[in-house]
């Protein structure tokens, strides 16, 4: 991917989505193919059957809080989540996502401006989110180019392997 820009339908969530809601603790010892069948089970049990790869998750504040388990971003990536945009992220989730190559962006004001199913365009290099359904644009917090690089390559370890 030369330029990191992602387009897809929005899947909206509220504030404080924690990693136990993303990958519940009692499925954590399952292989990722099995574990990912239970993503969001406590708060959105229909998610896994309805979701199609390429969708963009929109979160409120503190997305990915709680336990620091790396399975949470891993399982979302496995399901084909193309990007996550949120008001704010928990630090460890955010770091893990960048490290494994799951695109994430902090975008103040986004949660209240997107409805389920809106078509979004997320431009990671310009740090801009456009709601194509409402034609509204939002400025996100720019990532450092090394973070963008990690996302393009699919994670920091792939980045190392390629150089």
């Amino acid at each position, binding site marked *: 991917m030369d330029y990191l820009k992602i387009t897809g339908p929005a899947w909206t969530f509220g504030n404080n989505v924690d990693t136990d809601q993303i990958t519940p603790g009692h499925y954590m010892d399952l292989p990722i193919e099995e574990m990912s069948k239970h993503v969001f089970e406590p708060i959105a049990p229909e998610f896994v059957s309805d979701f199609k790869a390429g969708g963009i998750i929109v979160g409120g504040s503190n997305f990915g809080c709680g336990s620091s388990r790396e399975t949470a971003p891993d399982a979302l990536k496995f399901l084909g989540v193309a990007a996550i945009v949120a008001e704010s992220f928990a630090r460890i989730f955010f770091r893990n996502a960048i490290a494994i190559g799951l695109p994430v962006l902090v975008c103040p004001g986004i949660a209240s401006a997107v409805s389920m199913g809106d078509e979004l365009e997320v431009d990671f290099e310009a740090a801009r989110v456009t709601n194509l359904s409402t034609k509204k644009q939002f400025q996100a917090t720019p990532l450092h180019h*090394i973070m963008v690089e990690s996302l393009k390559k699919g994670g920091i370890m792939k980045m190392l392997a390629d150089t």
Partner: protein
Amino acid sequence: MGGEQIGKFSECNWKRPGKSEFGGNKLGETIAEKVFSRKVGKPVRPGEYVVAPIDCAMLHEAFALSWMQLMSAGVSEIWDPQKVVVLFDHYIPAPTERLAAAQMMIRNIIQSAGVAHYYGEREGICHQVMMEKGHARPGALIVGTDSHTCTYGALGAAGTGIGTTEMAYVLARGELWFMVPPTIRFILEGHLPERVASKDVILHIAGKYGTEVAQYKSIEFVGDGAEALSVESRMTISNMAVEIGAKFGFFNADKKTLAYLKGRGDASSTPLAADADAQYEATYEVDQSGLEPQVACPHSVGNVKSIGEVKGTSIHQALLGSCTNGRFEDLQAAAEILKRGTVPPFVRLYVYPASREVYVKAMEAGLLKIFSEAGAVICNPTCGPCFGAHTGLLAPGEVCISSTNRNFKGRMGSANAEVYLGSPATVAASALKGAITDPREV
């Protein structure tokens, strides 16, 4: 429970004039901002992402995981073996064959990778060793594969914990991205009363302001009360900064800091403090002089009560030690109390000095004799029961008072055990009585 948060910080007033060492007008900087702007060679502001060179990387047994990631990425050389510290502390001596094999693998790798600072299992708990050996210095940016890497803030060092994947990247490249955190400030006022310790200060803060007050933020502990604390006491507070969400937990690097660092390592150190016109997201005042001994009750570090509300609670075990409270002054405070009696036969007291240096000093000062005569079992410097790994674990239904930093459900053995956190003096007094006891009453 929140975890540290990225992206939510309030804007400060950024229009303060001043001369910059980088030229042009400069805003007053907090310690975290100073560290990052020096590292990247330009002024930074909270919320900004930067890529900064790492001064030192610390790895304990997690080295094995980072190394495997590195190998699978086809990297076989560490960016700068002089800047890497590796040691064993979590599982020492190896409690199982599997862990013994893992340690053997690490030893073999270390020999071929040429890591300059390898301390093996003999020096003690990672954070204590990092400070004793002079790796943690004012202004240094340090990452470790452990959440309590923030302890180094007691010496003015920017230490913070990262995962093993990111550590693999650091080992290859020697740099990592960071978000410059906003800073909050705790002004500590007055001197601590007799038998009240810095542990009581940080427990009080966790109880009063909650375990999320410093989420993602950098903390500065300042004021005459902070200045009055010994360097060892400061380490206890910085160690627990992560328990209230912080990324860094700084004290100013002052005369006491430089005196502590003298003769430790080769690098020189200079004082470090925030600029007078630095911008803080919030400021809290804490009166140390009126403080009572504090206890964090099961199963949260924020569930804090004054000693009067919990005294009399029966205990089965008392634990003195860890990277939180296993230093010489902690052992001294406990010995002061333990020399007045013996631990009753149905109560267990385990002592884990934080390092070999502490162990030797305690031996020379006669503290180990006091512990042994009081009925304590003295163990080697290790994490051991602090995170439930080995030795000193709790059975279902048992109660422990501990000088460690976390009392989460199941952290010290059974999920049906209860752990109370207190100062070394509170642990010692409670061990003598077989029940949680006010150390001022023995």
